[in-house]
């Protein structure tokens, strides 16, 4: 059985105190908790501070292009459905440049877990407006405050068909690990938006700010995450600042229902066709 150390590779280079450290740790713990071996897990990320996670995670990794973790992960999952595929990256990556991909993967219900390290800012490019920065938020690219409404990832995900939607907080590792485990176990697309503070560039949405504002839905017994409308309502009420499993539904995953769905992972197929097989394919054209 693998241990946390087996899921580590190299020392991360994030700023001290960056929320991404505990996200990585929680991912590692969740994998161990689920009894996974490092080679079974593939972490796919985009570009950004958050995106560096693929390099530091001890499983297979693909540190892809900015905004393109989702199509990369989709290709991997459909090529080898046996792999546990975790896509991970920043809020700019997933809700900005990559927004279209994220949503299409949700409605297809691709069986991947998507962890967004949402710091409401562009970290790696040194503090610029993110699509999830709050209105009025001042950054180097919004010196007078942002004039844009932020993306509402959780509501959007519920509406678009993500079959598992949750939020976590870097300051609450225990809950985060539990949510990661649930998300990974969930068959279908899991969006896990993690409030992961950028201690260097975001001086508003800090650990303290989140601690003060977060509503923990996991602790609310009246809340039923299988009730879509209720989930939408509650999330909107708390202006998205909540943690816990917010919505879940059971729906077949894309690789189970797509054309060509099969038990055998593509990577295990025998590519050499028998002579007759080839001939019969060619003979199709003798029409």
């Amino acid at each position, binding site marked *: 059985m693998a241990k946390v150390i*087996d899921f580590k*590779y*190299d020392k991360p280079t994030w700023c001290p105190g960056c929320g991404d450290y505990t996200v990585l740790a929680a991912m590692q713990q969740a994998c161990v908790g689920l009894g996974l*071996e*490092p*080679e*079974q897990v*593939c972490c*796919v990320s985009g*570009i950004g501070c958050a995106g*560096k996670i*693929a*390099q530091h995670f*001890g*499983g*297979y*990794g*693909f*540190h*892809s*292009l900015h905004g*393109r973790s*989702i*199509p*990369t*992960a*989709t*290709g*991997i*999952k*459909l*090529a*080898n459905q*046996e*792999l546990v595929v975790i896509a991970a990256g920043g809020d700019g990556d997933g809700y900005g440049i990559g927004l*279209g*991909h994220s949503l*299409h993967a949700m409605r297809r219900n691709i069986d991947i877990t998507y962890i967004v390290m949402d710091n409401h800012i562009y970290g790696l490019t040194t503090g610029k407006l993110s699509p999830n920065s709050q209105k009025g938020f001042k950054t180097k690219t919004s010196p007078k405050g942002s004039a844009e409404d932020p993306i509402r990832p959780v509501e959007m995900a519920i509406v678009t068909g993500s079959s598992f939607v949750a939020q976590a907080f870097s300051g609450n590792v225990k809950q985060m690990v539990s949510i990661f485990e649930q998300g990974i176990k969930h068959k279908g697309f899991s969006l896990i938006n993690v409030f992961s503070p950028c201690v260097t560039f975001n001086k508003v949405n800090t650990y303290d700010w989140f601690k003060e504002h977060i509503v923990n839905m996991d602790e609310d017994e009246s809340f039923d995450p299988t009730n879509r409308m209720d989930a939408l309502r509650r999330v909107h009420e708390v202006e998205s600042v909540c943690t816990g499993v917010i919505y879940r539904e059971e729906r077949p995953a894309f690789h189970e229902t*797509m*054309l*060509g*769905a*099969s038990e*055998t992972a*593509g*990577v295990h*197929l025998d*590519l*050499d*066709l028998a*002579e007759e097989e*080839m*001939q019969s*394919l*060619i*003979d*199709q*054209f*003798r*029409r």
Partner: protein
Amino acid sequence: MQFCLDTAGTYYLRNSIVRGVHMNKQLTWKVGGAQGEGIDSTGEILATTLNRIGYYIFAYRHFMSLIKGGHTNYKIRISSEPVRYHGDDLQVLVAFDQLSINENLREMNADGVIIYDDKFQAELPEGSAVRLCPVPLTGIAKELGNVIIKNMVAAGASCRLLNLELQPFFEVVEEKFGSKGKDLIERNIKAIQQGYDYMKEHFADEMFQLPTAPQVDRPHLLMTGNEAVGLGALLAGCRFLAAYPITPATEILYWLLENMPNYGGKIVQAEDEIAACIMAIGANYAGVRAMTSTSGPGFSLMMEALGLAGISETPLVIVDVMRGGPSTGLPTKTEQSDINQATYGSHGEMPRIVLAPTTIEECFYYMIDAFNLAERYQCPVIVTSDLYLGMSKQSVDDLDMSRVVIDRGAVVTQEELDQRGQKTYPRYAVTESGISPRPFPGMPHGRFCALSNEHDDTGLEIEDTDGRVAQMDKRFRKLDTFNGGEHVSYKGPEQPDVVLVGFGSTTAQIAEAFAELSSTYSIGHLQIGCVYPFPTEAVRKILAHTKQIFVIENNKTGQLAQMLQQNVGMVDKVEAILKYNGNPFTVRDITTTVRG
């Protein structure tokens, strides 16, 4: 280098003009009308039947970017020998409207015959010798209860004009509509018969005599370039396709949709071409041979992904079925104008291979090469077909199964990994050949991270100068052993005065021009099937003593000519014959310019 052309019999033939029965070694037929009138199916039925009874055909579709209306036509060249081009001239035109006559008359031979729907009054310019045969195409169809089957009436009339037996047509109709019920079959058969009869009765002495059909045990393969690409990919072991619909590449998607799932393959209609290309990269990384197919606009969107495949050393096959550019341009017209982007596109620098199949057969063979090269060199391979090659249909003698060989390149085995017993595998090890073995995710002890950043051997990003240079040099070393010359073909004397040079789909017309010009010139025909890395050595050898070089390209700026000048020099000897009006070359386009 190899001589892969065998189009000896396809050169241009002028038919003797004789009224009544025309003797032909080959014949060209065309049907034209508005989009949505069943033009294609008229052509298809003729093409299929003729191929089945042993003729070699080449069929070319002309269509427009709208769903109904406009002008569309379908041309077939019929021969007793292999043909790869639909011909400069036209002998028989079936016109559903006056527009079809106007649009196609300039192509017609003096001895040509036009069958047209007598619901309109056909007009010819004064002095035209073309013979008109009005036939109540719509009239007969209406009587049979369905206006749309006027196309079958037209097919029947054509049969008579070409002096063909009807039985094989009936068989094809039966097969084609088999699932749709007896009624429909019978109605179609009747339509054919009545068209035939009408022609026979009213234009008894209009007849073309086709050459005797070659004896065949079984029909030739009848396939488009796009289908050949699909078949090639499947036999090459491709088991994942992600694509976004776009003319003229979509038939690749169709063919694979129909066939790949039977072999465990998966197909995704992606949300856009960026996603399509990157999904294919993901699948290749995971160990499945994967590709994407597109045309110009989609290809432009893949430029960033191309670099990702390059630096992460992930095999990738992109098929770009070129169409008229720039931008949305001419979606339904052919052009060869993307090879610059294929060669130079994406920021920064990384190895890649650009193959340009020159025939429909090569669309098949080159796909096998493409997948092998992509995995051998762990780099993107771009296959540039075009609308003309992709959508034209041709009788293909046979395909050589022995050329279907799958070489997956340097893949590390589980044994090797176990022996190492390390947590991490140096996926990007700096090797002498530049090629580093790769594990597939899922394999124990094979962990690495693929990266779009510059990286060290296990895939940690680096920014130091030595590591950077080591990786850049390693990547570029990979192609040291690649010989683009294998994808070059030459025909002609050893030291020709004049050489006709083309790449990709222009082969057939150049070959016919070459055959025609050979009697008067010391001339050669050089066709390039790999534009990058440019096969400099092979090309230089052929052109060494040449006095004049004509580079024939379906584009405006002479992209191949520029590559030639860049790599081989000879700036002053090169003259480009360019065409960018959306149509493929005619043989005459070439011979006229060469004759000067």
